[in-house]
């Protein structure tokens, strides 16, 4: 019971982080029709910025805010210098160009911060366990991630559904030409959306940084998961991304935690302990394949046309 609750919360936390990444990715994908493989690099840069600024300022919050601003700025610069010239091009061009950006960012990080990973210490005011249910304790920092991510998700929802800019974003997602024809500065809107996506990725990176090591290539593994999320959720749909992210987070975490024991009941323990990690890593891809075979446009296809 204790383990189940704990793993459930871990899965929820991982899912929410995935959502932060996937939200930016799905917005950029849905609105600009841009496949951005370098989104994971922004996540990595967020984590590196956070580690640097926190060490520099000595405060987790201040460092985090600075890192967030830096990632936002980086996203805007990236959009302005490179990615804006890719809109309307073939998806394959996007793949090649942003693949090049991944190479660039990984190498730039190696050049600036060195090949060894960085560690970002937990902020001391969050480094204690919280009793969430009688007898069940959970780290406060992970709870804080859940709370912040839920807040951001809520703000994002309100922002997209209730504000004027959100309305423009939705309009841009459903008909790009029309919104341009109505006199909206579509270039500015695109830059803004890309910056927002970058900041969300940076936020995910900086919140994850104290739990994992900050290292080169950390963005690539999670990028693929984020892609799985938006494909399952339906490209361009924030609601779909949210549901799919939570689903993937829970399945991945719970699978890793409980599959070994389940397997041990059908296989001998040596075979189970070697097969289980591979099988639990496969689970989400299996889920994605099943979803796509059953619903080729994802669970919540954004209304196109």
């Amino acid at each position, binding site marked *: 019971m204790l383990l189940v609750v704990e793993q459930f919360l871990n899965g929820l936390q991982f899912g929410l982080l995935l959502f932060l990444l996937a939200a930016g990715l799905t917005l950029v994908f849905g609105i600009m029709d841009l*496949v951005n493989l370098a989104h994971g690099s922004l996540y990595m840069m967020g984590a590196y910025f956070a580690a640097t600024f926190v060490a520099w300022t000595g405060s987790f919050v201040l460092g985090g805010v600075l890192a967030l601003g830096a990632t936002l700025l980086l996203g805007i610069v990236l959009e302005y210098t490179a990615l804006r010239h890719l809109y309307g091009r073939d998806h394959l061009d996007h*793949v090649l160009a942003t693949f090049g950006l991944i*190479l660039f960012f990984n*190498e730039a990080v190696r050049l600036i911060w060195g090949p060894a990973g960085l560690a970002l210490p937990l902020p001391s005011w969050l480094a204690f366990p919280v009793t969430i249910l009688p007898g069940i304790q959970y780290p406060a920092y992970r709870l804080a991630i859940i709370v912040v991510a839920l807040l951001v998700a809520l703000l994002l929802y309100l922002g997209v559904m209730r504000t004027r800019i959100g309305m423009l974003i939705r309009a841009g997602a459903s008909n790009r030409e029309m919104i341009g024809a109505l006199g909206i500065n579509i270039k500015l809107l695109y830059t803004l959306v890309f910056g927002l996506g970058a900041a969300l990725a940076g936020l995910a990176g900086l919140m994850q940084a104290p739990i994992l090591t900050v290292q080169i290539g950390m963005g690539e593994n999670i990028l693929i998961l984020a892609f799985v999320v938006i494909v399952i959720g339906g490209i361009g749909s924030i609601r779909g991304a949210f549901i799919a992210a939570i689903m993937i987070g829970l399945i991945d975490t719970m699978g890793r935690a409980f599959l070994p024991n389940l397997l041990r009941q059908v296989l001998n323990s040596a075979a189970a302990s070697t097969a289980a990690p591979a099988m639990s890593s496969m689970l989400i891809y299996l889920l*994605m394949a099943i979803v*796509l075979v059953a619903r*080729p446009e994802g669970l919540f296809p954004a209304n196109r046309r």
Partner: protein
Amino acid sequence: MKSQLNVSSVVAALVVAGLVLLPVYSNLSGNIFILTLFTRIVILALSAVSLNLIMGYGGMMSFGHAAYLGIGGYAVGILAQEGIGSGWAQFAVAIAVSALYALVIGALSLRTRGVYFIMITLAFAQMAYYVASGLSRYGGDDGLTVYKRSDFGGLINLGNRVQFYYLCLFCLLAVVVLVWRIVNSRFGLVLQGLRSNEQRMQAIGFPSKRYKLACFVIAGMLCGLSGALLANNTDFVSPAVMYWTRSGDLMVMVILGGMGTLLGPVVGAVAFLVLEEVLSQITEYWAIIMGPLLLLVVLFGRGGIMGMLGRLNRG
């Protein structure tokens, strides 16, 4: 009117001639390293050519092509470990299993299109990656050493560098010719018709999915062959050859060289891997140059190297 001297075909011919004469140079200069490097390049060029068949001519953007490299490699590695050293058996199994895998995932993936197709092929390749990581009997994550190269009896000795290089080059050229024949056959024309307008082709009565699936399976088999060669080249196979960045590398080679051109992928593979080698000798941080270079190729060089050469020819 056909121009008498087409720049892109001259370059392609030069690349092929260079590949044929390379062992002579290596022998004269005593530079063994270059032969090893180019054996790898030729093998990966073969996979790029097979990927180009589905991407460039079939319009199917597969982001999981490296899975076949792993399947072919593991066919060699596993059979070798189980005591079946015959190259005929190993290569036949490599190609047959690749075909089977391509048939299954192709049938499922072809239900989707566009970006969803890119992602579902990626998902299947990642599954294959994790299956290989779970093969604890065959090294799991650490990979599998191939202690004895495939044995083709007295016909050819894969342990001999030059013989092995020529075998790889022969396979590459044979596959290029095969792709050329396929592309210009009725089957290939239907395929290219499907790439440009699937609905119209369906309307005039072509079962589009069957044609695409057949193409997908052929490309898978060819890449499986390349995987079997690759395992022989490195004497090693590990899940890492199937990782998604490897599929990305293959896509980059195809696009860099020129998608939908016969020799583009070969030129792309040579350019990509030689550039990687040269840059890594200049600086440890070679990727910091390579990355923006790829970006520039996309931004300013539409159609890859072959496309640029083609424009040179016209303008």
